[in-house]
């Protein structure tokens, strides 16, 4: 399995700030790779540097083992799915998908276009114009348009951001399946950690132009390398400099049966019912507040409702601690 895309000390400086500040990544062929980070962290700029819309201030972009610095976008074998899809309004869906093939002057265009439209389940909508398609359908046309060119890497710039929540969840599954079916490397940019976790084989977490950690979803969630990564991937409790996820923060009414795990006394400050679980917030003697995620089953075992003002003990298992 080779390396599709490699970034070496890639940097892009604008007057006033460094959007990308020295990134090195190796992205293996055939996987679903995500760039995750808050807005302004440089992930979109990184994408544009790879696509060729910007030239780096420093560093190199290597595509399939070849250096592509200085090459124009039409000279690179990557394709981008834009956030607003950027479908050509004066062309039908069919003509949109065919666009890149016409630029390459390929002969068997019709067959390829049809195959691509079938791949995204739009075979019967080829003659429609973008204005006649729904948001989800437009996104699929954009996908087909890029995939039909069989790029080395498919770049996706927050493609699900413009969809409504229900459609978004459905598209996550569809996109993942699509990637596995075509076997092309997907580089997916998002600020939504749930999206990244559910779809990726690997995630690079970015902050202020730098990569803070690269790893599988489990690695970045359970073993975050920095405080930032921990806090970005999910909620965190900080107790005495130790980090704990709410789902590993436990509550107990008496300390007897805790097998020696440390327990801190605290007072419940609020409870929030979330449907499938309950979030109980309690303030420790040190003044720090911690939130424990309690499943309904657990609550039942611990004798029911937690009330505000009630004294409680917070405890956790050593293995669940996160230190930085």
């Amino acid at each position, binding site marked *: 399995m080779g390396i599709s895309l490699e970034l070496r000390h890639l940097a892009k400086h604008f007057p006033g700030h460094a959007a990308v500040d020295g990134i090195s990544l190796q992205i293996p062929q055939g996987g679903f790779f995500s760039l995750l980070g808050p807005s302004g962290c440089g992930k979109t700029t990184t994408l544009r540097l790879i*696509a*060729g*819309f910007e030239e780096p201030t420093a560093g190199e972009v290597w595509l399939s083992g070849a250096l592509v610095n200085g090459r*124009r*976008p*039409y000279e690179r074998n*990557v*394709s*981008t799915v*834009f956030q*607003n899809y*950027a*479908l*050509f*309004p*004066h062309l039908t869906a069919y003509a949109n998908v065919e*666009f*890149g093939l016409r*630029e*390459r002057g390929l002969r068997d265009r019709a067959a390829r276009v049809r195959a691509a439209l079938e791949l995204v389940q739009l075979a019967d909508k080829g003659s429609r114009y973008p204005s006649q398609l729904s948001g989800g359908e437009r996104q699929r046309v954009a996908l087909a*348009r*890029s995939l039909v*060119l069989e790029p080395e890497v498919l770049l996706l710039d927050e493609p699900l951001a413009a969809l409504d929540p229900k459609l978004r969840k459905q598209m996550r599954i569809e996109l993942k399946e699509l990637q596995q079916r075509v076997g092309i490397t997907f580089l997916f940019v998002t600020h939504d950690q749930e999206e990244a976790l559910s779809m990726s084989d690997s995630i690079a977490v970015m902050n202020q132009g730098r990569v803070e950690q690269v790893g599988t979803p489990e690695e970045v969630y359970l073993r975050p390398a920095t405080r930032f990564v921990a806090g970005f991937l999910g909620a965190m409790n900080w107790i005495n400099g130790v980090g704990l996820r709410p789902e590993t923060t436990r509550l107990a009414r008496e300390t007897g049966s805790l097998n020696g795990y440390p327990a801190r006394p605290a007072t419940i400050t609020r409870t929030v019912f979330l449907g499938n679980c309950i979030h109980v917030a309690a303030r420790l003697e040190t003044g720090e507040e911690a939130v424990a995620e309690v499943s309904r089953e657990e609550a039942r075992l611990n004798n029911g409702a937690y009330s505000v003002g009630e004294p409680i003990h917070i405890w956790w298992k050593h293995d669940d601690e996160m230190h930085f």
Partner: protein
Amino acid sequence: MKRGLAIYAAAAYLFLHLPLATLVLFSFNASRFTLWEGFSLRWYQAVFTDAEMADAMWNSVIIAIVSTIISTVAGTLAAYALWKRSSRLLSGSLYLSLVTPEIVTGISLLAFFQWTFRWLGWHLGLHTVILAHVSFSIAYVAIVVAARLRTFDASLEEAAMDLGATEWRAFRRVTLPAISPGVIAAGLLALTISFDDYVITSLVAGVDSTTLPMVIYAMARRGANPSINAISALIVVIFGAVILISERLREA
């Protein structure tokens, strides 16, 4: 106050349209005097049988078409290039040429032609009129096309390049189709401006390149002649139609 405004507006519109309306009305007057003596098409007949007018009309058409093609191409390309990256000097000059009084443009071009033709041995003629018309039309075209470009989504060009199109092919296959209504509207505008021009044309036209406005002007100077009403009515209707189409395209 609303009622007062409406009444005033009606009066204002009357002021704007009545002069032209009476002109058109009296083009159908049977008499050559300003007394209505019945309906007649004789003045239209006169217009269509006037050889001098036919010649001038022919010249005007040629000049309008050629100069429009040149200025539309030049203006569109310039507007596009300036949209990608601006040049203060060029945009400023284009605006300046719009504001420059026609008489100044006219005499400056006359002086320029006269000076250069001394070396080249050329004379004033249709070609100088065409060049002059190109000169004042370019800015109009550039402005109309620039306005259209402002509503164009730049990411479409990036998408085209991403899919393998060079800058030129992206312009031809994506941008140009998208702005074409604006380009056509600009062309129609340039057409009417060229056709109607008197001041600059009269200065740089040669001996045998008389245009329609020049003929009309001469007739107007000479005295009352209802033929002018007829040709004016024709011009009003045709121009009106062309401009209407142009406006529709601009809003498309």
